[in-house]
């Protein structure tokens, strides 16, 4: 779609908690997570089932582009870098976090994307990822808060279940 893109809708601030497993080759990385998202900043906390934080990733955004990312480990060490690279280095998880802040909600990220509704949710194709969201917490007036998100690209597959959705900005 050539031409100037309309400015993307502002991100609905949300807080979601659930579990994620990232499968790549014969590896599986599993964690409980908490995700706080706001227009300008995301905080993703990866915990073990006992609630002990394994790593915390903070990403600052300016008009939907990550401008700074810091990852803090349970040892207290913290490092700056590209969000996905930081997460991979410290946890082994290959998680497309900058796209996921939209896909988690069942929405395409700004930019080129194919998105269509399906019987129980929505399918999005973007950045080489196939994303399927289903089991929405709310359906009226608009579907909101999928509880199941599955995405794959090449040999990486990610499965997410959300046990709690909270929205901080009023419904658009």
């Amino acid at each position: 779609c050539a031409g100037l893109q309309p400015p993307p809708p502002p991100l609905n601030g949300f807080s979601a908690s659930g579990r994620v497993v990232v499968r790549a080759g014969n590896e599986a990385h599993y964690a409980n997570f908490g995700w706080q998202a706001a227009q300008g900043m995301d905080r993703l906390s990866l915990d073990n089932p006992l609630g002990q934080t394994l790593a915390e990733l903070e990403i600052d955004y300016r008009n939907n582009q990550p401008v700074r990312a810091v990852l803090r480990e349970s040892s207290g060490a913290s490092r700056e870098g590209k969000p996905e690279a930081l997460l991979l280095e410290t946890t082994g998880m290959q998680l497309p976090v900058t796209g996921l802040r939209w896909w988690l909600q069942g929405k395409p990220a700004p930019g080129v994307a194919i998105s269509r509704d399906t019987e129980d949710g929505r399918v999005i194709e973007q950045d080489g990822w196939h994303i399927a969201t289903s089991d929405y917490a709310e359906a009226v007036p608009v579907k909101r808060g999928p509880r199941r998100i599955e995405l794959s690209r090449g040999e990486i597959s990610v499965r997410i279940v959300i046990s709690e959705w909270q929205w901080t900005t009023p419904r658009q």
Partner: protein
Amino acid sequence: DTVTDLQALLGSLRTMQGEFTQTVVNRSGKTQTSNGSFAIQRPGKFRWHYRKPYEQLIVGDGKDVWLHDPDLNQVTVKQIDKALDSSPAALLSGDNHLEKRYRMKALQSRDNLNWVEAIPRQGDNNFNRVRIGFSGKEIRRMELEDSFGQTTRIEFRMIVVNSKPDAALFRFTPPKGADVVRQ
């Protein structure tokens, strides 16, 4: 004193079973509560079964630690020592004495329980400190603090000590169709 009382209690502990409630409070005050049942058999065997708000099962069979998440249809398994687990289950079911791996300090009694604080001797990266609250022969509470200011409080209920738990509690066979990965 309180530390030797706890060590005596743990020394005489062969098995422990019951229910638990877990409350995790993060540094901005958000709390998440879950509950389920547990069983421990020293050395090295434990079952930690979260039921609400979702199911998650962790089983230590003496050799490996299995984790099963039915919603994700995922099973991960790793050797018990690799699990480097500082969970209550591992702490209580561990065979070596606590003071080899933790510095122990008596705290003031609170909520009519005796309290001991255990701080990992070498940097255990999962948490900073664990507090164990006990009364008589029963461990009633544990509090774990991580380095992000997040606290996990666990309350044990309906506790049965030194009984004969069913051996099947400490075995795990992955359900058909589950994705099983050894780490």
